């Protein structure tokens, strides 16, 4: 129910044109299964949220490893040696290209 709500919010939000163009294999970080890696290909266009992502190392082109994703509740990712807990809603706003 909540995922759906965030997804609609996600699709209606604007994205940066200069991001790496979306590939058909790109998917939301929240859909990347545990134990897999992906490279960030799109970031949300919301200053406040993206500025927080960026400060923690979640930035375009960086490799993210999903440590835990139970497809419900928050997920656990690792980026450049930092472990982060991300709310499902927040993770749904980041696009990644699966490695």
């Amino acid at each position, binding site marked *: 129910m909540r995922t759906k709500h965030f997804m609609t919010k996600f699709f209606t939000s604007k994205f940066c044109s200069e991001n790496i163009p979306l590939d058909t294999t790109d998917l939301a970080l929240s859909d990347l299964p545990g134990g897999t890696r992906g490279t960030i290909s799109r970031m949300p266009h919301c200053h406040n949220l993206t500025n927080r992502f960026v400060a923690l190392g979640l930035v375009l082109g960086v490799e993210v490893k999903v440590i835990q994703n139970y497809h419900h509740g928050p997920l656990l990712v690792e980026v*450049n040696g930092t472990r*982060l*807990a991300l*709310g499902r809603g927040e993770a749904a706003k980041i696009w990644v290209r699966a490695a």
Partner: protein
Amino acid sequence: MNSAASSMTIALAGQPNVGKSTVFNTLTGLGQYVSNWPGKTCEQKTGQYYYEDVCVHVVDLPGTYSLTANSVEERITRDFIINCGPEVVVVVVDAVSLERGLYLVAELLCLPVRLVVGLNRVDQAAQQGIKVEAHVLQAALGVPVIAMTASRGEGVEGLVAAAVQVARDPEAWKPNRPGIQEDHRPVLEALIRLIADRVPESYPPEWVALKLLEGDDEVTEMMRSQLGEGWAGVHTILVQHEDAFLAVAGGRYEWIGRMVRAAVVRPKAGRVTVTDRIDRIATHPIAGLLLLLLILGGVFWMTYIIGSPLQAWLEGHVVQTAATWVRSELTALPAALNGLLAGGLITGVGTVLTLLPILIIFFLVLGVLEDVGYMARAAYVMDRFMHPMGLHGKSFLPIFLGFGCNVPAIMGTRMIEAPKARLITILVAPIVPCTARMSVMALLAPIFFGQEALWVIWGLVALTLLVMAAVGVGLHQFLLGGEQTAFIMELPLYQAPSLRTIAQGVWQRTVDFIKGAGTIILVVSVLLWALSTYPGGTIDSSFLGWFGQGLAPVGKWMGLDWQMMLALLTSFVRKENTIPTLAVLYEAGGESAGLSAALAGRLAPAAGLAFLAVQMLFIPCVATVATIRQESGSWRWTLLSILLLLVISMLVGIGIYQGAVWLGWGMN
């Protein structure tokens, strides 16, 4: 002792969880001075360190990941650097997550201040096979880089030496600054040209331009008023290049990539670290919950085994003895003064004193869990359960501690960064039934309900928690408009606890409690003593007594007489007071046996149920209220909290009584 020429100020900056406070504690020891940042509820710590003949004032800036997002900590950090002009800023970065740490360095390098980088946790990095060459990094950055292991005190003095050196020879400091990504260079330059002659003197124009591109609220507001009509041109550029903030961040990370390329060697294959292994259990949705339960069970067991007996001993042997001694020995004093001493002052001091054992145990446990790195895991595991209240996992622990005592629960909210989430937690936490309220309940429920007491107790605890959730959801809608604050939290690597850091934390929080809340508790205790003594000399002929009698009409809706209402009022001093007050008012003499005889049959089941419910939800005790004031920094929110609970408890009491009467429980 030192002349002005040989003293300097350095500010300590760093991201959360990099060991910054360990560096600060090592440098300043117990000679710290803690106050609040002007106009903010955020703690400011300062201290001194003598290096050779130089007196170094160390200012501990709040931990911040960047200087971009608009949190209080970030504002304080940059305002201090821009307006207070420290000679040097020392940035602590973690060797294990160097890239992220350098992001803050990249931001700081755009401010008009000289930097020294403290590369902390080189030992932990080495354990993971990560090798960071400090001198290579130093050459790349053009900024002194000192390798350290702050937990063992290694490298901390070298860090100060480097800072003093930079302050003595400012010309030698030639940093390699990050820039914006090439394709956005012209935009930035155009922006700088537009604003350059209107930027306030202490601000570097390029930094202001970068912050405008990043959509920084404060800087945008400042420049809008500075530029007046000229703002339109700036606004056009900002709208056209709405995505430029990604280029700013991208530029910083490109710079970081260049800085670390030669300096860092990472292991090829990812190793399975200690953190990996522990987290497999600690963050598992089921195993993690069980572990958390186990830890919390252990905490309460410790409070029960050590805290409660100590509390009882202090109460019986110190507080009571002192009061008795004053009453019997100081008879030379006028009766009023004697009463004030024994009834008011000693009660107040006693409240603070008897709270200390439990507080110190909780602070200790909180400190250990935080220092080891477990706290973030507990928050992660509990996150999904806290969401409906608009809170994150971080609010769980403080609220849970409330079952022991509401005071450390409210002090524990300090670890919640988002101010509104913290405020909601502060307002919700006092609803959790603490041990004092539970003990009153445990004594009265069997008197009212005999065999069924256990069910009544369970039911009322469940009701209390439901009310808490409802208040949380309500406040969430009212304060945040139902909006979810983003949940992004770092899970730091596990590390061995540092006794020094923990001890200092416990000491600091305890002193804070005694100084802040303790003073209020003392004043209110004396005041309440006077109100319950004058003018008549006994409680039923006192101001408080009259007030209780005045409340009789409200009590009637709940089936309670004025004695019961007065007992509720006196529970404000300490929740346990309900029992002795009832004993005095019903002239029951000896406590529980006499009281049981006096109360049995006096109240209908409906009224008994209402009384117990109100007792659970009533205004928190003085100590809790004083702590709410101390932690929220506002009398307004404190009064609101009192009022909220007063109204809720009365409504619930009336609802329960009327409902129960309707069900036919109104008769004895």
